[in-house]
């Protein structure tokens, strides 16, 4: 019963995150939204670990936290470079990859 609440919370977090990634123009906010998504996933991992009485999920959550830290580091560095080059971190201005 409790676990279902966790999963619901995770789903809500996930949706907020997805919304942020899709709708936001500010690159830093997009990164923050990605963090939300990861947090939701972590919550899922831990919740399932609790449900299944298996420690693996918690271990995975720890790994995800570590990876997330690294990913934010890379992401912020990229944002910083984008800002230095363009004096803006608005994502809709970035369409060099347009095919």
């Amino acid at each position: 019963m409790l676990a279902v609440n966790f999963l619901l919370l995770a789903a809500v977090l996930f949706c907020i995150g997805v919304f942020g990634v899709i709708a936001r123009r500010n690159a830093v906010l997009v990164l923050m939204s990605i963090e939300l998504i990861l947090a939701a996933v972590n919550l899922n991992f831990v919740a399932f670990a609790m449900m299944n009485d298996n420690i693996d999920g918690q271990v995975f959550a720890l790994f995800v936290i570590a990876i997330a830290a690294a990913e934010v580091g890379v992401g912020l560095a990229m944002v910083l470079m984008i800002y230095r080059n363009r004096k803006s971190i608005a994502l809709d201005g970035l369409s060099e990859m347009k095919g």
Partner: protein
Amino acid sequence: MLAVEDTHAALELSSGWFLENAWLIALIPAIGFALIIGFGKKMPMKGSEIGLASMAASLVIATGAGIQWMQRTDSASHGGDEAIGGAFSGVRGVLRASEGGEVEPYIEPVVTQWVWWQNSGLEFGLGSHIDGLSVLLLWLVAFISLLVQVFSLDYVRGDRRYTHFFAALTLFSSGMLVMVMSSNMVQIILGWEIMGLCSFMLIGHWWEDAYNSHSALKAFFTVRVGDVGLLVGTAILFFGANDFAVANLDSNGFDIRAIQAWALSGDGSSWTLIMASSALFIAAIGKSGQFPLHTWLPDAMAGPTPVSSLLHSSTMVVAGVFLVARIYPVFWEGFNIANGGLSFIAIIGGITIVVAALLAFVQDDIKKVLAYSTVSQLGYMMLGLGTGAWLPAVFHVFTHAFFKCCLFLAAGSISHSGSHHSFDMKKDMGGLRKFMPITFGAWCVSTLALTGVIPFAGFWSKDEIIDNVGANGYTFLFWVGLGGAALTAMYMTRATYLTFFGEPRGAAAGIHHDDGGHDEYATEFRETAIRSADLVAALPRSLSAAANVPGDDIEHDAEGDPAHGGHHADEHDDHGPHESGKLILVPIVILAFLALTSGFVNPTPLAGDALGANLGEGVELLKKYVEPRYEPVAIGETAGHAGESVQLLEVTPLPAAEAGADGKDAYATGCGRTDPEPGTVCYFPKVKHAVPELSKILLSLGVVALGYAAAIGFCIAFYKNKNPRLVGLTERSRIARGGYLFLKNKYYLDLLYQNVFVYFVSRPLAKATYWFNQNVIDGAVNGVGTSGKKAGDWVYNNIDQKIVDGAVNASGTVASETGHGLQPVQSGKVNQYGALLFGAATVGAIVLVILNVS
């Protein structure tokens, strides 16, 4: 009970904490290196204190190990009951086997070993193998390294890479210690390569000067030529000895003791042994600067003086000698030293003695004189090893370390305080004895030791080598050794005269020809031949002198240095010669003292009647504690006891034939002469010891005196009185000029290596390869190509164009159309991509749910 004692005398050997933890001696400097690199710059003394502390700790442990080794040896001689008392007494109550006394049993080394890595059951160990030889060298290396580091405190003060200098120095010592204590060949290679790397770093310490970095490269590559020999030799030994070692000794073919035992067991074919010992000796030639690979050693003088001192006294160059001494049985059998074979080692050693001594005559750089002197002395060590004089050679390593280190440090002191960072004897020295009395005194003591004047250290060791060479039947090499001694006396007299006597010149007289030259590094690479026309101009100011002027003004921040404090102001102004500070003088004086006394650890002539003072064999401490006993040991009692504090070891009884009444026959059988009895192994061949005679001692002293007399006479006539018949002889006489140029150009060996090997060998080789490439390989390739092309044409026209292309074009069209259709999706907008990603994920999730639910 009695019967048991008759056949097997059970033997208890004492051990101790220091012997079993001797690996700390090498580990501490290695950790010290890491600490200096990591934290050195933040330390109050910029990391030098870590280096000093680690070397001091190593020295303490090495001293402890030495004392315990002596106790261990004594415990064997005395049956284990009065082990401690006899350690320093120097007089033994028990007679040696050669004196008709009891058998001296083989003293088991203390081996502590860990598995470093494993490869399909083959274990590569890492650990310590402590016997007399390694204890002696461990102590020596730790001691010399400590003194050199103390010296460096003042000498390189203010250098721009001060911390790195101490780090490299510490690692260098560590490398030598690792090698000296190694229990297997792999560890020897490890230490050997650490030293190679560090010598590169240290010789090229002031790499901004192209000459220095060239010298560092030259040292590295020349030694690497030899290193190939080490790898090949180790591999041959492994494949030769492995089966024997696994079957009998429960170890493998890398283990030093297994190799020693295998070489003496008669198990290996002589061909294998010759190949292995030749390959290993090539490594020793490279490392120990033997002819013809000695050329790197004088160029290694480009490094700072403490480096030269450490490199040329106790580390690096004696590594090759140590390698030969360590696995001596391989060379003993491989080169047939037992039967007086004229061995490769002895020949190379003899050539090196003379060749290097002659080169020392034409050097104007004081450090290069010492460098060639080192090469020559290493030749003596090799000569000793190559003729069966193991103990004298090791003894010479020991004494040579002290006096040669002292000479180098004295040269450093001179350049530091007397000649304004110059090493050029002709330009910047002369008359320095008045200004630097302590350095002068130490220099003189060490020179007398180097030239082998009684009672200085060099006499006891060098004379021993020469004596044993003669006694083992190598009459010609005996005279070569004596001639070398005379040459040594001559070139050292010349160097002493030019440096300390006569009128002060150049910087020694207060003239600063290279003032403002602090940034002016000599950048030419002096490997071109010196031509006849350049004779006069061929004496440029010393390169290493210029190289030794670091960017910062090194000696003038001498706060806290009492010796500098007093007359600091004026020395800063005129740079006149003066005595060095205490940090420089103390190591020199200690070393000079040892240069005077260290010979008395093994004064063989005093043990007999030769000098009229028969003190008994007890005074020969090295013979007792360092030389391995050549008694066979029963298999099974030797293996697998490493690290136990008390070992039980059974000694087989003395073969009856050995106890012959006259001394000569005693050497006809036994270890290394005949194969050991089944069930026993030998670890050391039965070497002969010459009995010193007064006539031979007088002969060698006479030769040295003759050398001194001739050299002093020449110096006074040539340098002081400018005798017109001698001055300018090289310009007038073709023979003299030819000889001078020949020496000045170092026998043209560098040219040979550079021009002949590089141009005349590698270039035609390249051309031939090119021709072969163009005509033979290309022809074949072209032939294949032509027929291939015809077949290809048909395939192209029929299959490729019609069938394959049709399909490809069709698919290309489809892909192109699809791409155009999907182009809007590739908007370049991150958010849109995110939306697509999550949309796809959602679709996927829905599909999964439907599939799973239904």
